[in-house]
């Protein structure tokens, strides 16, 4: 009778990144593997640090908006909006109703665009080329709308302290209404392609589960927290830019189910958020006010009195905080951002621990990380 031979093996080490197609941006993963199972993972960031917060202190107030725009390339509107709200609070500037509504329209377009970028990343992780093509085709329509109104497809640099840079162009509202109608159909298509797709469910269900307890401890916010059952959304808790006048529901994953907070839930929640944003677009576009688009003269230097403010907006990735301090001078004394991706990065090691290597791209893409905004 032969005795069983036990092969003694050591854990393998694998370093991934900073540039790899499996990663959501420039970061490095130092992993230990037991066969194909990840035993531990360490995240290194900072590869895309641009010194944004220092750059703010070296520019005049008016120029700081274009820097805030670069906070997150996938959702430039949110950095701009947070900064403008904070400065408007310090300088006690009013924003005309029309400008508030355009800000909401651009925010929701930005949210849908960012979520579509997310769908593409997840589709790439599970190997669905069809989905990538469908989503990118539709996202172009949003970028067209940005271009129509702001002149730029990315880095729109369109908000100003006290309003927006220019009034909306002719045909913008009509195209928003067309887009919201189109997206109602498209969300159904995406559902057919993914939500009820057996192969997709197998690749994402039970993968990268983030419990509600850990969500709270790690400070995870936004769609990732709502996929774990939390309903917190700044647009509802502390409404800004007139969100309190809009009738919408915040989608939350159903905690009564057997599972919650996995990659599948995070994906489905974003699909539901696209549908909600579409509805917000329709409501705002149908009720757009007439009147001024900015309370200040364009191009005029702003004098921000000494003071400080901390505002929060609901970006596509979660809670985006902006702390602004002014000393009465021509440049900001300090602008600091609290970005949602900070917390999402902190969740990676425990999400990867115990995960099979083949699921790594699914886990990472399902978090919707913005490495640029975390590194700043």
């Amino acid at each position, binding site marked *: 009778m032969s005795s069983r031979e036990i092969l003694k093996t050591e854990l393998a080490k694998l370093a991934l990144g900073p540039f790899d197609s499996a990663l959501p941006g420039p970061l490095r993963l130092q992993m230990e593997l037991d066969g194909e199972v990840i035993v531990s993972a360490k995240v290194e960031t900072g590869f895309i*640090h641009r010194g944004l917060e220092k750059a703010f202190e070296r520019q005049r107030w008016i120029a700081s908006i274009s820097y805030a725009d670069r906070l997150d390339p996938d959702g430039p509107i949110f950095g701009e909006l947070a900064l403008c709200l904070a400065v408007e609070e310090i300088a006690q500037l009013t924003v005309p109703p029309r400008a508030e509504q355009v800000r909401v329209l651009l925010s929701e377009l930005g949210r849908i665009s960012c979520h579509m970028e997310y769908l593409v990343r997840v589709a790439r992780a599970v190997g669905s080329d069809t989905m990538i093509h469908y989503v990118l085709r539709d996202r172009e329509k949003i970028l067209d709308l940005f271009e129509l109104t702001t002149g730029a497809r990315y880095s729109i640099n369109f908000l100003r302290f006290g309003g927006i840079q220019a009034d909306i162009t002719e045909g913008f509202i009509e195209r928003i209404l067309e887009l919201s109608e189109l997206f109602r159909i498209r969300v159904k298509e995406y559902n057919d392609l993914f939500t009820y797709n057996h192969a997709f469910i197998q690749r994402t269900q039970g993968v990268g589960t983030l419990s509600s307890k850990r969500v709270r401890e790690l*400070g995870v916010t936004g769609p990732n927290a709502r996929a774990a059952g939390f*309903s917190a959304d700044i647009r509802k*808790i502390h409404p800004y830019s007139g969100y309190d006048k809009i009738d919408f529901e915040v989608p939350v994953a159903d905690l009564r189910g057997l599972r919650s907070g996995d990659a599948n839930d995070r994906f489905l929640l974003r699909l539901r958020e696209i549908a909600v944003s579409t509805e917000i677009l329709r409501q705002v576009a149908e009720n757009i006010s007439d009147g001024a688009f900015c309370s200040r003269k364009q191009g005029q230097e702003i004098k921000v009195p000494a003071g400080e403010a901390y505002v929060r907006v609901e970006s596509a990735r979660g809670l985006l905080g902006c702390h602004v301090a002014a000393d009465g001078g021509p440049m900001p004394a300090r602008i600091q951002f609290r970005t949602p991706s900070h917390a999402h990065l*902190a969740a990676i090691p425990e999400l990867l621990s115990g995960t099979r290597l083949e699921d790594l791209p699914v886990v990472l893409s399902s978090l919707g990380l913005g490495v640029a905004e975390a590194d700043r």
Partner: protein
Amino acid sequence: MDKSKLISKLEAGFPGAVLQVQRFGKTETQCLWIEGKRIREVARGLKEDFGFNILENLSVMQIDDALVLTYFLRTSDPETGNYGECLIVRLSAHLKKPNHALEVASIVDFWATALPFEMEAGELFGIHFVLEGGTKRIVTGLRLPVGWRGYPLRKNYVFPESFSGVRHERAWIEKAGGKK
């Protein structure tokens, strides 16, 4: 809880720790200036006795020759995650020498979310956060390239003429009215 009750309870619980109470900016949010050395005991009390279970943000800025650390705290509903009360706690640490690092007690044991903020502030502002037991966390290479000298977010920071053989051209900034 009523804010004035909270403050009187804190003052009673930690005599001398609360140096000043003021409004934050133009909001009604209370901002407590506390003694820097007692941040850990105040943090423990705020979390365990007053239910501030969320550290939402930690922002650092330099005012004259002191670094001011601002902790944005919140209560939160454990079921829905909805935010409740907000409290801002502040401390200032005097910079004895402009280019030297200073030490501040870490609060990571109470709020795990503090870690990335402390790491970043540690490197960019030159703060060595002291953990329980006295170990100092000295961060390098997180945001800045290895070998970079100085703390860029301090007001007196002067950019190097070159780094790693690459010359920095900054004439356009001065032309635009920016500070060197």
